[in-house]
């Protein structure tokens, strides 16, 4: 009797264990199931590189290039802002700040991670957008730049905590060696610790990008939502994620529009899959490198 229950439990454990693989497969399968139906009537090339996203005009046009470029522009802006700030604050928290201060700073970053994206989007509309509107004298502050600033901020917890981990995993002997040779703390950080943690930093940047590209609600609320080819960072744009969130409610189940939104989902899934694989590669390299010596 006892044997049987144990046998059943161990089977359950195994099934749950491989569950994650099953779920990833299911997600991909169901995205394909709906999304691929679009390509019965629209060819892949005009989907990916078409410049017009008019899903409900007659005839509809499903070109997602403006959305891809919208996502890229917002992401690029966010990376430009977030990477230097992220590296600098991770260095400050891990290497410079006294222990009590670094604990407080870390809790602050954890707090930021806990704030839901919808709340940040709401605050962004109320504070950041009017601020940008005044500074740049724009008709509306809801622009790609607002999205980039918001997303840079939202990616910060991911970027800072992973960089901090990789700085902490740099062997102590590296620091001691450098300081013993008469280098200042800053020289040690700049010449020894940063290079040793470089793989971890790359992983952090990749995961930050993944976070930014996939972010939906805050971006939907703050980028102004215009599905046009972006020409400036001070213009409203529309991202891949925001398009799905904004339009799925109106798309009739089984219509071309519905399939097209799932096809966008496939694009997002593939992007995030690649980003995570690359990040994982850097993460493992970081671990191996700093273990060997």
């Amino acid at each position, binding site marked *: 009797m006892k044997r049987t229950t144990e046998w059943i*439990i*161990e089977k359950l454990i195994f*099934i*749950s*264990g*491989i*569950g*994650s693989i099953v779920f*990833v497969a*299911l*997600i991909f399968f*169901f*995205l394909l199931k*709906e999304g691929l139906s679009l390509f019965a009537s629209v060819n892949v090339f005009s989907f990916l590189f078409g410049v017009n996203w008019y899903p409900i005009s007659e005839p509809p046009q499903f070109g997602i290039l403006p959305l891809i470029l919208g996502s890229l522009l917002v992401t690029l802006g966010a990376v430009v802002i977030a990477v*230097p*700030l*992220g590296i*600098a*604050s991770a260095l*400050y928290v891990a290497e*410079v*700040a006294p222990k009590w201060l670094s604990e407080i*700073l870390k809790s*602050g*970053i954890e*707090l*930021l991670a*806990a*704030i*839901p*994206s*919808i*709340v940040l989007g*709401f*605050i962004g*509309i109320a504070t950041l957008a009017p601020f940008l509107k005044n500074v740049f004298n724009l008709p509306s502050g809801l622009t790609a730049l607002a999205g980039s600033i918001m997303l840079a*901020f939202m990616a910060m917890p991911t970027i800072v905590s992973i960089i901090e981990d990789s700085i902490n995993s740099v062997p102590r002997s590296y620091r001691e060696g450098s300081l013993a040779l008469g280098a*200042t703390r*800053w*020289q040690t*950080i700049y010449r020894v610790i940063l290079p040793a943690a470089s793989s971890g930093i790359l992983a952090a940047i990749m995961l930050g990008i*993944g976070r930014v590209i*996939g*972010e*939906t*609600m805050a971006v939907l*609320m703050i980028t102004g939502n215009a599905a046009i080819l972006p020409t400036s960072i001070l213009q409203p744009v529309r991202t891949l*994620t925001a398009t799905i969130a904004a339009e*799925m*409610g109106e798309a009739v*189940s089984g219509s071309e529009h519905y399939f097209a939104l*799932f096809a966008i*989902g496939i694009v*997002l*899934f593939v992007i*995030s*899959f690649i*980003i*995570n*694989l690359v990040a994982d590669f850097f993460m493992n390299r970081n671990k191996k490198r700093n273990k060997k010596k």
Partner: protein
Amino acid sequence: MIDSKLKEKAAFAILLAATIIVIAPVALILAIILINGLPALSFEFLFSIPRDGMRGGGIFPALVGTFYLIVGTALFAIPFGILAAIYLNEYAQRNRLTRAIELAIINLSGVPSIVYGLFGLSLFVEFLGFGASILAGSLTLAIMTLPVIITATREALSAVPRSFREVSFSLGASRWQTVRGVVLPNAIPGILTGTILGLSRAAGETAPILFTVAAFYLPKLPTSVYDQAMALPYHIYVLSTQVPNVSVKVQYGTVLVLVGMIFILNIVASYIRSYFRKKKTW
């Protein structure tokens, strides 16, 4: 020499400035939410239904909906996540299958939240015929929360010293008996902390529930798992973008309730962590 000392001072000042740029907005945001949200809080606001096209009244249905979604998510994600972590930490060999599971978990945690929404819509709402419902929304949120729970549980399990297991095995206990009697009890604080954090994140998610459960406005509370429900995050979205002329007070009040709820869960989680860390003797 003086030059390099000076450089160090300048560099550290820049690092400090960057850190302030990152942290100061967090404090500012929380202050804005508190100052604008507190005046809205009242018994009536929490426990009555929205009125006047959601410009007045309270947020009770959204509060209840979010509560149901958290419970539903917990029911699916906790057992599944803990068992999966037990498999990875206690049973799995270092082989290709394990590596594949690890990669799958990493990818699950990286899938954009709106893609979870699409997946939930096509599998639970349409294919399995649950309709937009608490059941479909909870399942979607649960799958999204799994990686958090698995990772936290795995860490908690691997923190239990190997010698504990060896003693149990040497007394003739089977692997499962060892897991249940020795490893799990010692890992519970870590599991609890991770689980609460995962659920608190699920509570604030909007994109996965947009098409799987969230209702714009429901005057009555849901009565079965097949009913739609209002939810706090979606309610914030509706109040700030879909309904014109909602008073700032109502908007910030709703935001404060959601953020307050999430912070309370986070505080509970870190209290559990520090309480048991102090008690720990190994």
